[in-house]
């Protein structure tokens, strides 16, 4: 199976020590003969050849896959912290604290074994001190102590990317939770030496919560609410920094047949994400962003301060909603992104809707529910009485389809006015009301209709009144119907 390196962190560390010693003995330089690229040995972990500045991308973009691994390089990562007011939702603004001016911060992609040099600048116009804790770092604070930076200054530190995987980074200046809740987080991918299988599209998504003083939807500039943050009750849960950051015209795009890889992070600061793509199955999940691969997964858990890499193939065109399946977060709080897939349908995989027929519960059950079945016989009532009651029952039960005019809707609902189908029936239409019509086509006044009418939970007395009204309205004329006639047909 093509997966992340299966080596343990311990052996990497040993390799590192060994090489450090080697450098001490032989000196550093291109002349050193270390094992070359595709070796599974770690002996070259200590030697850095070459230097370049990392190409950083903003979500949902991911930097292109790195050239195949040859030997560790020095990678410069420049990030400037900016405190700025940005859109949180339509009409809602928030004073975000950001890495690189966006939430989430830039995506960093390096190789396992690289020497990463982080230059963290704090914009002179900022108010707060900031730093960075990268979970890819071995060392106290993940770089936080080394990068505590006041506005107008730049801190530099280096770390060796010893473990491959997808790691969260975040600001870790006290109070940490507030810095994360205000938007200071992002992802760094330490690509395994052997690389990942090629895919067609890669995207970067990161979930985070926002705790505003106002309620979800309250417009204007919103402030951070410390009490809600401590109670872990966010007003917003979003992907990529704002409600709708990647929906509608900002949705992700792919073609049918594309293989998709999502690098997904969860900044928290509090909630665990139940990551799910509606209508897709992850055939590969790098669990928690590490080396363990799970297959055929519907929903994968991403802890706060954790990640996952998911892969799937778009087999059908359409819009796929990407959600936190703690679903109220998606529906009410903003945890929704969209992937729009275009291309030909394959009915062999997904048919779309084949039919939509009316569902009618078993009529016997419904009939049994009516108390009149075994009740005492209803007394006869006058035509005027039945006609009046029947009119009210018609409005309640029938008019939405057959219309108040009794003319129905051409092609959908047959007319009752001067209906040969109704007026010509020996049972005066009682059977239709008792049992409904279950789909056999009918001809009404020469026009065909899909014969579907629900059985109605009406009493014998009510059916008598309803039919008296129907059979004496809109030009129809016939005698009054009494409850005993209905009862006779219900219980023959």
């Amino acid at each position: 199976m093509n997966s992340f390196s299966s080596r343990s962190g311990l052996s990497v560390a040993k390799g590192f020590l060994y090489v450090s010693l080697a450098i001490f003995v032989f000196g550093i330089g291109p002349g050193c003969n270390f094992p070359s690229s595709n070796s599974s040995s770690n002996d070259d972990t200590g030697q850095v050849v070459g230097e370049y500045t990392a190409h950083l991308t903003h979500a949902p973009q991911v930097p292109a896959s790195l050239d195949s691994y040859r030997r560790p390089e020095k990678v410069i990562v420049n990030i400037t912290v900016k405190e700025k007011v940005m859109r949180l939702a339509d009409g809602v603004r928030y004073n975000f604290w950001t890495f690189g001016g966006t939430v989430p911060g830039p995506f960093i992609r390096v190789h396992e074994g690289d020497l990463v040099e982080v230059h963290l600048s704090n914009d002179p116009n900022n108010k707060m001190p900031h730093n960075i804790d990268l979970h890819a770092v071995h060392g106290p604070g993940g770089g936080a102590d080394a990068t505590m930076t006041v506005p107008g200054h730049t801190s530099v530190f280096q770390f060796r990317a010893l473990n491959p995987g997808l790691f969260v980074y975040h600001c870790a200046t006290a109070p940490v939770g507030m810095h994360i809740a205000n938007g200071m987080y992002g992802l760094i991918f330490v690509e395994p030496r052997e690389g990942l299988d090629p895919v067609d599209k890669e995207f970067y998504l990161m979930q985070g919560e926002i705790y505003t003083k106002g309620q979800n939807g309250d417009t204007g500039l919103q402030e951070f609410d410390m009490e809600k943050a401590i109670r872990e009750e966010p007003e917003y849960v979003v992907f990529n920094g704002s409600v709708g950051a990647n929906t509608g015209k900002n949705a992700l795009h792919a073609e049918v047949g594309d293989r998709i890889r999502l690098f997904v992070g969860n900044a928290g600061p509090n909630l665990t994400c139940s990551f799910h793509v509606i209508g897709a199955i992850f055939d590969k999940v790098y669990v928690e962003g590490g080396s363990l691969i799970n297959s055929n997964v519907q929903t994968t858990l991403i802890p706060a301060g954790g990640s996952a890499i998911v892969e799937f193939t778009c087999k059908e065109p359409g819009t796929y909603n990407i959600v936190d399946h703690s679903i109220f977060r998606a529906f009410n709080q903003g945890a929704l992104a969209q992937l729009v897939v275009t291309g030909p349908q394959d009915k062999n995989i997904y048919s779309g809707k084949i039919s939509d027929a009316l569902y009618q519960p078993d009529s016997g059950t419904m009939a049994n529910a009516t108390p009149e079945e075994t009740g005492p016989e209803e007394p006869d009532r006058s035509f005027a009485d039945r006609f009046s009651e029947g009119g009210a029952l018609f409005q309640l039960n029938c008019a939405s389809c057959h219309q108040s005019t009794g003319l129905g809707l051409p092609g959908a609902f047959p007319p009752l006015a001067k209906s040969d189908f109704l007026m010509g029936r020996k049972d005066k239409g009682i059977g239709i009301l008792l049992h409904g019509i279950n789909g056999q086509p009918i001809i009404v006044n020469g026009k065909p209709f899909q014969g579907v009418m629900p059985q109605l939970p009406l009493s014998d007395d009510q059916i008598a009144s309803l039919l008296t009204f129907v059979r004496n309205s809109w030009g129809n004329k016939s005698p009054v119907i009494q409850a005993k006639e209905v009862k006779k047909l219900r219980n023959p």
Partner: protein
Amino acid sequence: MAIIFLFQGRMSVTIPILRDPSANNKSPLTKGMAKIPAGDYKPFIEQNDQPDLHRIGSFYLDIHAVTNQDFMAFVKTNPQWSRSKVSRLNADAGYLSQWKGDFDIGDPRILQSPVTHVSWFAANAYCKWKGKRLPTQEEWEYAAGAPPKGMKKGQKLSQIILGWYEKPSPAVLPPVQSTYENVFGVFDMHGLIWEWVYDFNDNAGNLSGMENNFSCAAGSLNTSDKEDYAAYMRYAFRQGLKGNYTVADLGFRCALDTSLLKP
């Protein structure tokens, strides 16, 4: 006769009622200063080997931060502290960068605004020149913990402070005494700028023997009030500083020992 104030549950101080308002102005040195009464202060950072409450002696504190205009007078008298003359060991390249030139403030709107982009060394030199000194961190925190005059019941000082921390810096820094006056009679302790203290690097340094406490979640260890987010920010800010650093929102005010005034 006295009133006891309880500030945020962290500190109590006894203030004599019917203070003679002229008492602070016997010496010209104390003009523009408020006499901060002695009191007990509960430090934000708790240390095992220290008592819960620290006794803070009485001292004088400038009622507002040093302004650009104040600082210009200092630079004119001490040109070694002008922008082009100052040593990089004493102030970084941002020093007084809001000014137009060595002896030209430029924008008249900031004359009465707090001087910022000043290093600790410059602030310290200014206070010495005035015959004063920088307040210690404990003195500053003690004086800043006093609530605004007329603060409503149920209102929390930390909420007022957080309100400032959350707002972006204004394009033009407002003048001194533009925020609130606290019950000690000093202005703008929160809500205008950060301020240097004499021993700003004590928290992270070897004096207290503590690790860097304000750079990670463990920052909540050893603190007396885990919900005082505003205090975390001040201590974190100080931890990020070095003596020659200058920052756009960082200024200072001076303090004075009461003992120096006695004949």
